[in-house]
């Protein structure tokens, strides 16, 4: 039994598990422990000051945290849905093009190369109220009062969402296009002969076939939702007056600026569960969609 355990595939997977164990699992166990202490960076001895569930109780009582949490959920809901929708639209559009499709596909991958911090900077530059491309453009059309995109309490969140959507729509577009290109022609033609209109063809043939691809894109995307931290961090830093504070920027602020590690780690756990739940949900959906497609 134990010999079998240490043979073949397990030996091959072992280095991966060791790397992840050392860099991800052990630190997470450690931070789980600190979330039950009053650990502050400035006072190392507080690492052993066990406070039970107090950090979590404080979290539940903390309205700022719940605002950030709700904002994060809202942010993800808006951004993921729009990305999927735009990605699908772009994929359908490019799928129709016969001339220059390859070039377009390559150009479409452009935003995927951009580091999130770079995306943030780029849109910070575009949305700048004084010298930004957008306000300069509006100026051309006689709109002379500068709109404070990143300073206004309502516009700031929208501006960040634009950046996030710009950066991540392409992964949906690319993967859905790959799905579209793989759809067999026969059922579509048969359906057309039988008198289906475009919408019916889309709903009954194209979309079911695309489902696994949609879930692949969502799974891959859900791995990286936390990277929105980079974009928010550089664009507004959570401001104005914490109106764009997401759970991740709040962790950074509490953990590093206020040096309150125990409390920040408790918050981290909420964000980790959030990310893992997203990934787990889409991954199981992917497995199910794959199985359905296999049966057909």
């Amino acid at each position, binding site marked *: 039994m134990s010999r079998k355990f240490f043979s*073949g*595939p*397990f030996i*091959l*997977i072992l280095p*991966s598990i060791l*790397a*992840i164990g050392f*860099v*991800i699992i052990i*630190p997470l166990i*450690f*931070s789980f422990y600190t979330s039950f202490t009053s650990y502050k960076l400035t006072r190392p001895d507080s690492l052993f000051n066990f406070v039970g569930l107090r950090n979590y109780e404080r979290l539940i009582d903390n309205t700022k945290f719940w605002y950030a949490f709700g904002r994060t959920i809202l942010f993800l809901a808006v951004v993921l849905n729009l990305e999927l929708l735009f990605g699908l639209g772009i994929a359908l*559009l490019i799928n129709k*093009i016969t001339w220059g499709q390859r070039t377009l596909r*390559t*150009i*479409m*991958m*452009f*935003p*995927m190369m*951009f*580091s999130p*911090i770079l995306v943030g*900077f*780029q849109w910070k*530059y*575009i949305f700048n109220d*004084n*010298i930004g*491309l957008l306000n*300069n453009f509006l100026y051309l059309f006689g709109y002379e009062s500068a709109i404070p995109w990143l300073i206004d309490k309502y516009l700031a969140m929208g501006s960040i969402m634009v950046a996030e959507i*710009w950066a991540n729509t*392409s992964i949906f577009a690319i*993967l859905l296009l790959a799905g579209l290109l793989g759809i067999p022609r026969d059922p579509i033609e048969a359906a057309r002969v039988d008198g289906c209109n475009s919408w019916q063809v889309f709903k009954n043939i194209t979309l079911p076939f695309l489902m696994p*691809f949609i879930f692949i894109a969502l*799974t*891959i995307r*859900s*791995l990286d939702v*936390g*990277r929105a*931290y*980079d974009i928010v961090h*550089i664009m507004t830093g959570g401001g104005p007056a914490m109106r764009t504070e997401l759970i*991740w920027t709040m*962790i950074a602020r509490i*953990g590093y600026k206020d040096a309150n*590690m125990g409390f920040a*780690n408790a918050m*981290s756990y909420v*964000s*980790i569960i959030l990310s*893992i739940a997203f*990934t*787990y949900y889409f991954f199981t959906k*992917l497995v199910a969609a*794959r199985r359905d*497609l296999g049966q057909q």
Partner: protein
Amino acid sequence: MKQIKKIAFWLLVLFLLILICLPGIWIFVSAFRPNPEILSKPANWIPDRWTIHQFTQMFSINGYVSVPAFKYLMNSVIISSVSTVIAITIGMMGGYAFARFNFRGKNSIFLSLMLARAVPGISLSLPLFILFAKLGIINTSFGVILVYVAMNVPFTIWLTDGFFRQIPKEMSEVARTDGCTRLQAFWNVELPLAGPGIGAAAIFAFLLSWNEYALASIITRTVHSKTLPIGMMDYLDEFTINWAGMCAIAVVMIIPALILTFIVQKHLVSGLTFGGVKG
């Protein structure tokens, strides 16, 4: 009517192209403009004067003037390359195991690896910061490399698993009946066939390390180990931003990434979808 539809269609495509490309182009143009021109009001759309001032400042090796971009670039290159090589080596082993063997708990191990990857960088940075400080590997390239290896392994497994699956099992079986060991069959038959796919996985891993910010911003403290995305923030003061400088360092960051992606884009998509669909 058909004509109008066609024109509308191409206008939509054009609009999309502009939306995708303009931000990057604007950064590129701004990197070569003098700062006063960027700040001018009303806007000066077409640069009067091109300058490489920002680049010469960044890269003046003897005693830098603005930001030690050359050092950051070197750190980025070293950290990204080394972590990619290691991550691909051990990730490929894992991917091969998932593609070729059936074993107990296979799906749950695969899922756990992916879930480990989902942990947000900033949440992981808190305990890593403390642990690395205790171990004395904070602010070292070694520490950053270690982190990036672990971050890249799950995704490499996902990709290489897909590529190995695309190769018929029979090919290695034939090689083995001809007297190859499993390792020889892997080395001589399967690895060359999966080569382009593994290249794509490598570039994906490289880009992730190249672009990472949240973790590196915490575990790198000085010019000794800071990477380009962190170095970029040097241009950002509390109240003022050197826009041209920031654009210039952005260009330095994006050009290698663009070139690499153009090389592998085809394999990238097939790897992502194959691993996912035919699992």
